């Protein structure tokens, strides 16, 4: 009823027992002392560590960091350098390149696959497991429209999402009134070139190199994130009532005719594609060439033929397609950046250490001598 907010509490408080000493004060009971607690916290005397950054104190740190970083950097650089990597661009931009005609004559409607072969030579043998990547350039997998155009519930096997995909998938949500499975632009643009590798020995015999397609996707993706709807029994039935993505030649349950349990949403090529890259130039793991037992290198030096079933158009957006063969170290593929960065930062550290040493000699020592009695 009488609600007002004008007055502050302090008035009210002060009305109370300011003269609490006077005996005649018939006020509100015993007045508690307002003396603040004398604790370290309340008196702001908490023990504290006070690091002081002067040239003298940070000097050792700089040298130590420099001395640690540079060897690490060298180690990383050497590791990276020891990795063998071979890259071949098969886009077919140049008129002389084998895939020129395939690239040139590409049509969305053609039912005929265009195959081209690229010859290359490995100067050095690839000893351990070799990983085969495909690389795309100028392909904006990190575009917002692209990244969001998927339905993770559908990919997780949710039946309602299968028949009624998320709106994020537009315009690849439905086709001819049927829901698209898998919906969205990412799935729609699945990389569908087929790469086959042959070793050409001295007799010019083409030996196909076995390419393993298992284990190219993250474990969590393969086993948790991507699930086929209602088990794995008969995918054709499961996906009934849905339609394939517009750009696809075959439905999702026929992605891998050779292996039954590599179909549907858990097809590993598909899963790998669905992890969208950070930069417009990227590569994705395609196949693994397991090391044969014994001493023979996985890929001996010599001539190779790469057979490409050219399905994927990139020339319209001035893209490039590459095939990369690479061995792997404990820290992954070939990338000298980390090593160089370590060496650079270490060197800068060292350099700054020297500068600080000079500064220290010029300024700090003078102060110290004034302070320290002899």
């Amino acid at each position, binding site marked *: 009823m009488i609600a007002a*907010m004008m007055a502050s509490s302090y008035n009210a408080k002060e009305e109370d027992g300011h003269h609490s000493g006077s005996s005649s004060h018939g006020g509100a009971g015993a007045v508690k002392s307002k003396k603040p607690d004398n604790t370290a916290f309340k008196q702001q005397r908490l023990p504290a560590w*006070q690091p002081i950054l002067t040239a003298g104190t940070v000097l050792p740190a700089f040298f130590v960091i420099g001395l640690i970083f540079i060897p690490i950097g060298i180690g990383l650089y050497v590791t990276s350098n020891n990795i063998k990597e071979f890259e071949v661009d098969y886009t077919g931009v140049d008129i002389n390149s084998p895939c020129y005609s395939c690239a040139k004559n590409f049509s969305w409607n053609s039912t005929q696959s265009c195959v081209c072969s690229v010859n290359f030579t490995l100067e050095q043998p690839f000893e351990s497991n070799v990983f085969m990547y495909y690389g795309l350039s100028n392909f904006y997998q990190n575009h*917002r429209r692209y990244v969001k155009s998927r339905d993770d519930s559908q990919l997780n096997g949710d039946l309602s999402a299968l028949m009624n995909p998320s709106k994020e998938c537009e315009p690849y949500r439905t086709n001819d009134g049927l829901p698209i499975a898998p919906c969205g632009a990412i799935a729609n643009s699945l990389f569908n070139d087929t790469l086959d590798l042959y070793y050409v020995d001295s007799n010019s015999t083409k030996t196909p190199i076995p390419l393993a397609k298992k284990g190219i996707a993250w474990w969590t993706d393969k086993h948790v994130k991507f699930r086929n709807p209602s088990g794995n029994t008969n995918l054709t039935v499961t996906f009934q009532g849905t339609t394939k993505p517009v750009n696809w030649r075959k439905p999702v349950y026929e992605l891998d005719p050779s292996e039954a349990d590599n179909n549907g949403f858990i097809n590993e090529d598909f899963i790998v594609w669905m992890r969208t890259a950070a930069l417009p130039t990227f590569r994705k793991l395609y196949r693994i060439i397991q090391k044969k037992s014994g001493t023979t290198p996985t890929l001996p030096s010599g001539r190779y033929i790469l057979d490409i079933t050219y399905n994927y158009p990139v020339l319209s957006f001035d893209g490039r397609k590459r095939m990369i063969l690479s061995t792997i170290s404990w820290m992954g593929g070939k990338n000298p950046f980390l090593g160089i960065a370590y060496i650079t930062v270490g060197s800068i550290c060292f350099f700054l250490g020297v500068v600080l040493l000079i500064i220290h000699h010029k300024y700090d020592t003078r102060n110290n001598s004034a302070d320290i009695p002899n």
Partner: protein
Amino acid sequence: WSLVSRVPDQIKEPLSAESSVYLLFFLVCFCSTTKYGILTFLPRFLYEQIRRAANAFFLFIALMQQIPDVSPTGRYTTLVPLIFILTVAGIKEIIEDYKRHKADNTVNKKKTTVLRNGAWQTIIWKQVAVGDIVKVTNGQHLPADMVIVSSSEPQAMCYIETSNLDGETNLKIRQGLPLTTGFQTLEDLMALSGRLECEGPNRHLYDFTGTLRLENQNPAPLGPDQVLLRGAQLRNTQWVVGIVVYTGHDSKLMQNSTKAPLKRSNVERVTNMQILVLFGILLVMALVSSVGAAIWNREHTEDACWYLSRAGDISTNFAYNLLTFIILYNNLIPISLLVTLEVVKFTQALFINWDVEMYYSETDTPAMARTSNLNEELGQVKYLFSDKTGTLTCNVMHFKKCTIAGITYGHFPDLDCDRSMEDFSNLPSNSNNSTEFDDPTLIQNIEKDHPTSPQICEFLTMMAVCHTVVPEREENQIIYQASSPDEGALVKGAKGLGFVFTARTPHSVIIEAVSVYVYIFGDKSYFLQCSELIFIATRATLTAHCSSLGDSLRKENELALIIDGQTLKYALSFELRQAFLDLALSCKAVICCRVSPLQKSEIVDMVKKHVKAITLAIGDGANDVGMIQTAHVGVGISGNEGMQATNSSDYSIAQFSYLEKLLLVHGAWSYNRVTKCILYCFYKNVVLYIIELWFAFVNGFSGQILFERWCIGLYNVIFTALPPFTLGIFDRPCSQQNMLRFPQLYRITQNAEGFNTKVFWGHCINALIHSIILFWFPLKMLEHDSPFSNGQGNDYLFAGNMVYTYVVVTVCLKAGMETTAWTRFSHLAVWGSMALWMVFFAVYSAIWPTIPIAPDMLGQAGRVMQCWHFWLGLVLVPTACLLKDVAWTATRRTVRKSLLEEVQELEARAVDPGAAVLRDASGRSLNERAHLLTRVFRKTPSSVGRSNSVQQTVSHGYAFSQEEHGVVSQSQVVRSYDTTRQRPSL
């Protein structure tokens, strides 16, 4: 009834004690000073919050995110942090309001005696209603505004102290109408019946008009002299009976108690300015990105980029893109800054309240920060305006020395010159050294019939009788109710010398000494001078001084200017104002004597307006209210002279000497902390959100985010929320003792060296550099898309999570670098925040599809932590970022060491304080600063001296002489006083 009472000049009430009780029951004396009720809290609070520009901005962003397809970060990523932040602010408000509720309760639950049902009943204040007849006894506070019926004193007189109302501690006389004087006994009062008309509630303390219409009597006019106001205290009167006219919020006290004026600190103004500039930058960034998007879209047509599926959607629309980018970059403005600052300042205010060195045990008064907005302003004060007499002397005076017929008596204890010069905080303790005049020669001279003996006797007699002191007897103890402290001191001094003033009757004063004298008081005579002449003289003097100063005008000289109120009137006139200001600013000190409250605030206002500097006004009386409210920071002394100054102040302290700690320690610290906190908040936001801009360059300006949406959303409210708090609450550049010992350190904050446009942009550019490193290093590290030993690839979010982790680590370490004193909370904040993110990361990467949130995060944490690049980068990237900062700090510190840094070093190095003293004693010649620094450990902490100084006697100054509009003049009062008479009791 309640309606009527709100219409001025209309209130009418029956005087029958019986009838009034139930009639006016709803107009109870319940008094609430709180801001919110349970129901009003939400709308009121939200309104208050949304009114602030920053919150409104975030609300706008939150609303924009609801438009489909526009927001790059989902629909609720701004709303949820905003709600979180508002919740924190709300909790703070609730705590503050709860305190007010509690304070209200203590007042509302106080007891008083009311005539009800034919008997005196004790009820609580809350239940006092208009029309009640209330009895108040000596020393009690009045529960409501009431009209005097009768009292124990003759002619229904009574004495009240109104310090709660106007700050004047002098006793005021109020007198009931002769008509009602006789109603003293219970029966009389029961028989009292009639009507009382009075004006509606208002805030004029000195006005009251009403009419009393007793049955069978002529109406009698009522004026302010018949009214006792709530909050006043009954003194020197055994009891008084009155009729309640205003209760609760209608009472004059409540009508007068306004909120402390809302002042904004300089730092806040600068911050708001920078937020605006940052908002401008945000718009520019959004614009640049939108233009980039337009260009990109033109080059990457829908046909060419067949995979993008942009057909027909809004991504090519410039306006939508602009909105997208505004949403994307919105957190460049730190969403949590306002609430962080609020909590930080609130805590700082608590620290001020908790400071035991600013607690005055004698009056049980701790320091009180009435507002927390101005904490950092305390660190920037350049001009200090102090009320002179009362404030500086604490109204405690002692008779110490006198000269009679050319002979000086009483010796002054040797002042420790060094000490008093070093800090003024010890002054009160000095005055404490000799409370009494002790010089036996004075008495000896009387006894031994020294030639000047008659003069001495005359002198002492005068001391004992020429005053307006009223003696009160309490069991053989005479308590002097002195009108002013100096009078009291003189009478006490005379008493100590054997001239004891014992009683006063209307016609004589009685002293126990050689003989009894009757002295009649004389009037003060005033000079009336021709104002025109003074004006000319003032101008002449001012111009003469100004011209004589020449070049050093407006620079600080070793000069003091003394000017009195009369002259000031002319000096402050429009014509001379500038000259006066110039002259005043050239002096180290300016003393203005006999100035009116208005002049005080005028001077403050002049300096405030013409000099771009922070002003602080300190005072203890009602006459200081003006300047306290005018100055940037107002400090009230909550001591002897009542509460008016305190109630209008921003900070209240019990002793003038505490001002030193308030400014040099709390002010400087608060400034340091607040500015560090602000700069850091800006820094960390710029670091994270500029990364989105870099990412925009490689993702076709599509507005795609590099991080998971909730990770961004929670960046400010969880993962980097703690470091700003520890910086703002626990950081301290150097210890309290050294802050006090080196007032020079105050100059750093005073000149805003820690927070200005240059520093701010320095931080922003630093953040920019960090963001470049933080974005490009990880992206280059992952460029080959094969960071695992099993050859598998990664995605954009993998890179994003790495970048994010590095950002959190770097930003936390940066907070550590900014921290000068690592308390356990700093460790908790720095390492805890990193750990918090890691834990969150791990958990968050495992919840889908169990909890349908963040499918893109699934498995990220595991993969990131399996990646050697991540761990190697974790060492490299933060190092690369902070390398420059560390080197820069170290170099600057070494090459151009500031005093602060030198003090810090000494503090850190010299664990044994004795070492510095030894060094000094060894006779080594030290430069001035080094000499200064040796003081670090030499002096005992000033707190020791201070705690001894609290044994002063509490004596209220009762300035009878100052009441100007009383019903009876002061001389009449004192003369009519007969302390030998017994008073009637009820």
